[in-house]
């Protein structure tokens, strides 16, 4: 987990020490990075030059350094940690099966996966029901 904003590392320290540590014992257990110039945010497409801040961009990056998922929100709406964890579990399953299994809409651990191949063409309706999306 890496957090990034345009604030300096000094301000990160103040925020961690004076506010975050009151929400999480000992403060958040990951590095908070400083991107004052917005250089990193620009390359990731989340830097808002007019406001001088970075949008709520979230990237899931696999062990090979490949981006598997992107979510970008404007500032007033927060993220959903459960959905983040669900997506990581789904990408980890796909990676573990070397793409042999895929996770359909609404998948979460315990729900059926799909095994793409010639036999599945036109047969998804037999193994996946709309209820599984929810």
């Amino acid at each position, binding site marked *: 987990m890496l957090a990034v904003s345009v604030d300096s590392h000094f301000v990160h320290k103040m925020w961690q020490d004076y506010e975050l540590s009151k929400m999480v014992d000992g403060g958040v257990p990951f590095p908070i990075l400083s991107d004052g110039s917005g250089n990193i945010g620009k390359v990731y497409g989340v830097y808002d030059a007019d406001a001088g801040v970075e949008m709520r961009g*979230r990237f899931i990056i696999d062990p090979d350094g490949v981006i598997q998922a992107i979510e970008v929100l404007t500032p007033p709406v927060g993220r959903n940690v459960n959905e983040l964890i669900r997506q990581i579990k789904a990408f980890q399953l796909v990676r573990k099966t070397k793409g042999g299994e895929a996770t359909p809409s609404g998948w979460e651990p315990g729900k059926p996966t799909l095994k793409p191949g010639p036999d599945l063409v036109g047969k998804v309706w037999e193994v996946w029901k709309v209820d599984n999306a929810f």
Partner: protein
Amino acid sequence: MKELKVGCGKPTGATVGAPAEQTKEKDQVLEKEVVDMAAARVGAKAPDFEAPAYQGGNFGQVSLSDYLGKWVVLCFYPGDFTFV
């Protein structure tokens, strides 16, 4: 985290390595912009970067490439002390 010498300056993060650049003769500037904007996309390598960081009472330098071999969640947010 790698060591970060703490001075009075305000160092910032930066990408590592030159951005991918296509050198087509026609519309070269436009091509470069398109490549830059498309630098981060699903299925592509995450652009590497290095930035000053704070963790566990210490300042340091963190690179994305430090985490090769691990799953990484990279979260940008609007600012410290903002409300959400």
